[in-house]
Structures are given as C-alpha cells and as structure tokens.
C-alpha cells in the first residue's frame, strides 16, 4: 500500500524533538541565557582575576568604573564584578545539584509508590504529605542554624525538601501509566511488573521528569537566594547571588545601586532561563506525540 509517510525520511525521536525545541524562540533564548551566565561565572575568572579572599578597606564602596573596577567594590572592598562571578558559581552549582538530587530522589520515591499501590503507596505518600505540611522556609532556617551551611550542605538541605514535588508528580504519572492499554497488552503476553516498569512506564514518564527537573533547578537557585538573603547562606569569603542581594539591600539608601541590581538581575535571568528551557522541553514531549 502506498502511503504519504513513505515519502518522508524516517526521523528519530531526538531529531524531531530537537526540531520542535528549536522552533520555540523563548526556549532557545533560555539556553543562550544559561550558557551566557554559566560562561560568565565559570570562565570569567580566567580572564578577569580579582582577589576575593582578602578584604581591602581602601576600596570600600568604590563607584563603578573607577580604578579598574568596572562594577565598583562592595562594603569590604571586594571587586563587585569578580564577586558576581564567584557568587554565580555557587548559585549555579547548588541549583543544578540540588535540583538533580530532588528529581532523582522524588522520581524513585514516587515511582515506587505509584507502581506498588495499596498500603505501600499510602504510607509513602503520607510521609510526603507530612513533610509538605511543614513550611519550607521554617525547615531551612532550622537546619541551617543547626549545621554550618557549606555548598554540599546547602545542596543536601534544599534537596531534602524539594524532592516532595517530583515525588507527587511521578506517582500520579505512574498510577495513570500503569493502567494504559499497552501495559495491559504486555501483560496479555505474559509480561511481569518489572518489565512494565522498565520498558513502558519509565520511558513514558521520563518526559515529565525532565521537564520538572528544569523547574526544580530554577526553584533550587531561588532557595539558595532565600537562605542567603536571610543570612543562612554560605559564610564569607564565599559568595552567592542571594547573599549579595541581601548585603546590597542594606545599602539601598546609601545610593550603592551597583551592589543591589547586578545580583538581583542575575537571579531573575537564571531562573527565567531555566523556566524557558522547561517550557521548551514540555513542548517537545507533548507535541511530538500528537503529530500523527
């Protein structure tokens, strides 16, 4: 039989996905923005070296543009541009790592609860409900005041709270995928639950998980900012954008705008970037299946 499909070359799933993604301008902008900010933070110090360890009281509150400091200096004499790079490293590393941790833990937890069903599901999901009922910020403050917040510690603290969202999401996905006809068809061939999970449920849930992961990263970056803003972030001389924003805020009325706007704008941009990427990925995973 002749069909129109035969004329078209066979395109792989990833190729098609890439096409859909690249048609979304915002998503491309998100990728560009992320590459730009990551490059700025991690590659920037190679070209623009500054001392971010020793304070220099002669340079306190230098205005931008003076004495080789394009963005001026802060209240203890650190170069602001160099500090933005250092702060970006912490924010991006913690954001990515905590987002990933939350996604992995949440996916596994939710998947097990969803597949198993019954009382296993009930117990596991009540744990999630219980933890969700504790205000996140309160939990963070409590934990941050007990332990010294280093970068790995921040990752664990944020990850320990943020996995609840993905867990619920994946559990719902697993519950609905479990009853799909193709899983039924597989059982009709004599297939087992393990096979259903491996071959059918996980590959079909992966889209949701990946999309959610990007939003988790954006959220984690915001959590770092919250914590640091409340003074519970990484201690000096380490820096991150949230902490810098908090410091800058105390100088608002002194007219030191260069301490306030750069970290604020950087936080907005990186969160936006991840949200755009997430939206683009969502298109990829949804549209492709509907284009019959």
């Amino acid at each position, binding site marked *: 039989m002749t069909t129109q499909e035969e004329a078209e070359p066979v395109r792989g799933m990833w190729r098609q996905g890439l096409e859909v993604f690249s048609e979304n301008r915002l998503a491309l902008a998100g990728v560009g923005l992320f590459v730009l900010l990551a490059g700025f933070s991690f590659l920037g110090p190679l070209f623009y070296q500054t001392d971010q360890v020793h304070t220099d009281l002669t340079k306190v509150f230098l205005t931008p543009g003076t004495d080789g400091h394009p963005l001026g200096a802060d209240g203890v004499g650190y170069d602001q541009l160099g500090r933005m790079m250092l702060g970006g490293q912490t924010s991006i590393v913690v954001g990515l790592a905590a987002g990933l941790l939350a996604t992995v833990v949440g996916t596994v937890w939710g998947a097990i609860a969803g597949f198993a069903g019954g009382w296993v599901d009930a117990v596991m999901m009540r744990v999630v409900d219980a933890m969700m009922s504790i205000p996140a910020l309160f939990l963070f403050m409590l934990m941050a005041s007990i332990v010294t917040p280093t970068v790995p510690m921040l990752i664990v603290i944020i990850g320990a709270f943020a996995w609840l969202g993905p867990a619920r999401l994946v559990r719902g996905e697993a519950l609905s995928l479990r009853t799909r006809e193709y899983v039924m068809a597989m059982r009709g061939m*004599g297939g087992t639950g393990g096979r259903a999970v491996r071959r059918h449920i996980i590959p079909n849930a992966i889209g949701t998980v990946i999309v959610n992961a990007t939003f988790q990263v954006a959220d984690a970056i915001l959590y770092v900012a919250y914590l640091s803003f409340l003074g519970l972030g990484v201690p000096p001389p380490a820096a991150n954008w949230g902490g810098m924003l908090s410091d800058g805020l105390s100088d608002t009325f002194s007219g030191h705008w260069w301490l306030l706007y750069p970290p604020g704008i950087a936080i907005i941009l990186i969160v936006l970037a991840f949200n755009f990427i997430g939206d683009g990925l969502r298109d990829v995973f949804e549209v492709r299946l509907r284009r019959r």
Partner: protein
Amino acid sequence: MEVPTQPLLRLRDLSTDIALRRGAVQALDHVNLEVRQGETLGIVGESGSGKTMTVLSIMGLLPTGGRVVGGEILFDGRDLRGLEAQELRRVRGVEMGMVFQDPLTSLNPTMRIGAQVAEPLRVHQGVGKAEARERAIEILRRVGMPRPDKIVDDYPHQLSGGMRQRVVIAMALIRSPRLLIADEPTTALDVTTQRQILELIDDLREEFKMAVILVTHDLGVIAGRADRVAVMYAGRVVETATTAELFRAPRHRYTEALMRALPESAESGRLYSIPGLPPDLSRPLTGCRFAPRCGFATDECRTTDVTLTGDAHAFACLHPVTDRATIAPSAAREPSASGAAKPILTVRDLVKEYDAGGAGLRRTAARVSAVAGVSFEVKAGETLGIVGESGCGKSTVGRLVAGLEPPTSGEIVVDGADVTTLDRAARHRMHRQVQLMFQDSYAAMNPRMRIDSILTEPLEIQRVGDSGARRARVSELLDQVGLPRRALERYPHEFSGGQLQRIGLARSLALRPRLIVADEPVSALDVSVQAQVLNLMRDLQRDLGLSYVFISHDLSVVDYMADRIGVMYLGKLVEVGPAHQVVRAARHPYTQALLDAVPTPDPGRTADAGSAIRGELPSAVNPPTGCRFRTRCPLAQDVCATEPPLAGGTHQVACHFPLRQEAAAGA
C-alpha cells in the same frame, strides 16, 4: 410535504483551509450543498472527507488555524461571511442548533441540566431564571425525557449516554432553530439508543418544521432518515441525490465501492475492500481524488478536474456506474469448523464481580456483577462472535479469557487445562496460546517504541528464539499482514488507523497463538478500511487455523465474521447459536430488538416500531433477579422472575418464551 423552492441553507463553492505547522490542509474544496426547510440532508463520508469541516464552517466553529477561504454560506438568502459579528452571532446562536457526537464532552459537568439547557435563552434573549427553568422543563419533556421536572436539577454524570444526548438535543432546540445540525449524533451510543435518538430527531423535525443536516459515517443511519444524501470524499462532494435514488443506483465509483464494502453486502464470503488510503489534503491534488483507488480510473480521471454535474442526481465521475448495484443479504457462511473439532476454549460458569467504589469508609457490599455465569465453547478454527451493548460484559469476558484478570469464579479451559488453577509458570506459557487484539491499537502500543520493538516484545517476554530468529519472525509477520519492511523503524503515531490495526494483529500473531480474542477490532475504522482488516483476519484464520473470539457491538460485522454468535445482556449470555440462525431467526426477544434497531443501508426497509425496546439498561450493581432482560422485555411475565436456563441443542436460548422453536439441526 410541500417543499419551499428557496433553500434555507445553500453552500456555494465553499472552501476551507486549516493551517498547519508547515503549509495548510485544504479541508474543503468548492463544496456545493443545499438544504430546504423541513428536509433532512444526510452528509456521509469517511473520516477526513470534510463532512465535519463543512458543518463547522457553517457554525463558525472551525479549529485553530481553520479559515473559510472562498465561496458563500447563504442562510435564508444572506451570506453569513458578509454579516457583522453581532448579527452573525444571533443567526448562529438562535436560528441554528448543533448536536455533537459525544454527549458527555458537550455538556459542562459542573452545571445543572436545567441551567445548561436554558443557557442559550438567557444569553440570547435575556430570559429570567424562573422562566428559563420552566422553558427547560418544557423542552426536556418534548425530547422525551422521563420526569423532566426532576432531571433539570441533575448533573450530566447522573444521566446515561442516551439521556445526555437528549439533553444536548434539547439545548439545540430550545431557541426553536430553523436549522439543526447533528454531527454523528449517535456514533457514541448503542444501537437501541441510537434508534431512539434518530426517531426523536425525525419527530422533532416535523414538529418544528426544521431543516436537518445529519452528518454520519454510517450509510445505514442515512438510509433510514435522510431525504437527500451528499457523499463526500477528500474535501469534495462527489455525489448527491435523493436517498432512494442514491441507494438504488449510485453513480459515483466511490459511492458504489463504499456500499460494496459494507459487511451486509458481502458476496461469496468475502468483502469488497477499497485499496489504499484517502489522499493527503495538504498536498496539491489534480484530477478526481478517488482516481488512485478506483478500478475504473483512466488518465483522463487523473488529469482533468471532475466537477459535479447533473441536476437532481449529481455526481462527479467520468466513468459512472451504469449497471444496477444490489445490496444482497450476505450469503450464509459455510461453517469452517467441522462439528467434531476439539474445543480450543471452554468457559464454564464464568463469574466476574468488581467492588463498586468500595474505597475508604463506604465499604458496603455493593458489587458490580459484570459477568454472571457465562458458559461457551470455541472449537479449533472457529470464530465465536460475542455481541451486546456497552456494559453487557462482553469486553470483560474477553479480558478474562486472555488472562488479564482472574475470574471471581468459574473455569476457563484452554487446550485441556483450566487456566484458573495453573501455577505461575504454566500460566505464563498459556499466554502463547491466547492473545488479545485491541480496539484502539494506537493506545495499545507504547508510543515511544518502534514497530520493531513492539513486534519483538511478545517474543522477548516468552523467550522465543534468539535475536536472529526474532528478526526473521517479525519480518514474516509484516508480510502476513501486508505491510512493508520499512514500517519496522517507525513509531505508532506515523500510521493510519487501518495500518495500526494490522500491526496490532501482527503482534497478536507473533507467538503463533491458537486463539485470538479480538475486542472490537474494527469499530474505530472507516468502512473501506474495516473491510481490509476483516478480510485479512479471515485470510489469516484460514491459513493459520486460528480461532477467534470476536467481540463487537456491530451485528453486521459479527454476522460476517463469526461461525457462531453469542448475545450478551447485562453479564449473561442470553442466546448462542450458529451465526445465520441467530441473525435470521433470533429466539430471544433481546436479540430480536437488537436486530431491529440496527440501521440497514436499505431505504425501503422501515423498522417495525413495535419491537423497539424502551427504557435504559438497568444497573449492574443491583441487576434484576431472574431473567435480567425482563424489566425491558415486551413479553415478560411473572415466571420471568425465575432465572431461565440456557437451553437447546445447537441454538440455545435463555428465555421462558422464546420467539421461535429451534430450527431443525443442520438447517
């Protein structure tokens, strides 16, 4: 009936495009139609023929990207395309009414019936709340709703499908429109309900002196209800005539092919199937659009633009049918299984009950009795058809036989071994014997797996052969179902419905099963494609010696496919016997009612109004005692409160008052 000369609605060269990601689909191409007041125009065609797009263009409800690009929509002499938005809204809202296919999705689940029915009044005429309620009750009474004063305060989910469709019709009628458009109004309903709804639309048309446009894919529905018919194919009207004329002497080759593809017109045990698929409308097309699939096409057909010619009976065909087409009742199928063949499947007293929402605290003893003591046999090489309306438990029987669910009680003996008592390993092996074929193969295939992996999966699960042997088997399967090898690298969404059904069949054949349970395998397909799949299933049965349990709501399809037919009603088998006897000499009153309700593509045959069953299917939570059909049966008497056994020789019936005696054996 006097027919005014001026048509109420006239479409002149209507063209509609739908924009895609790349390019556009030319959904309608110069469509010309007209409907007069008091007349029913049937628009018939397969999916993608543009029949729904036509009515959506009229109603201004085109999907995103859809746009009328040319022509006129003359309603009462005025072109709707030239009207101002305000007036257009009034014309479409007040003078036209529309009934959609799925009554559940066309009702808002959070609004009470009364409020929904009266919404157009409140929007367009500013009627007050109390009056709107009165009018809603009034209109619900006129569409035959029992106890309308109570129903107005119900929500849609509290009503059955047929009742919901009545509500949708009431909603369309409350403004007394002059034109009623019904788009596949009964496709989602059972045949007995379908008959009630079609009769209702007919009655209302006369009462309200409306024009009706009835859109459907079902030639049978059109035959009984429309005054004139327009046949559409690939965005064009290819033939239009009075119903009697069209069915007596179709002229266009497509119309003729469509009629010959109906299971009712099967001659010599084989269906005529139209080769190929409808054309892709997103590409420029020249000539007659049916030419690539037409056996009579010449070069002229492929190059010249064939237009609709003729007055009363117009058709767009250069080589029209000249001899008379006949729809002869299908010849009785020669029994393919000899009486002595060993049964491959024996089902005894099968029972399946489900907990009815027994979650949480309300764990009362409410049980849904889905299958209540069903017994039957399938012999090697035989097809047993199971028919019944939705909710009768036919699909549950299929799932139980295929081993997807354990029965509550009863025996399922496959090839001499009772499946319900087998240990795990033996049950695992049993799946090689029995395989399932689904209604919607797209849903039954993992969208992220290539056809290659989909066809290999059963072999992997059952550990059949090594990877080389599996590859060879998969290629062999594709040959058997007539698909090219290239299909292996593709994903399910790249195939059409008919092709997916072939792939589904190939997958069920992978393990070389002896029995295939096919659950509504062609219900989602168009007539021409349905014929291809049915023929394929029969060819494979003959070549491979398969047995089928063929589950369907469509009696004509089952009649074509099955050697024996079992009729189910509310979890019970009420009649079982040789196919030709069950269909032509039914013994159970329910079977007879079901047969009478099936619309036949023969406008001369009018259904006997007396035999129609009324009322609704009782709930399976508390089924009637005794004979479960007695609450709706015209013959029911006191004795029916005791359960009748399934009795008889080859043609068994479970009824105290069977309609006729069993025909002599071998008849």
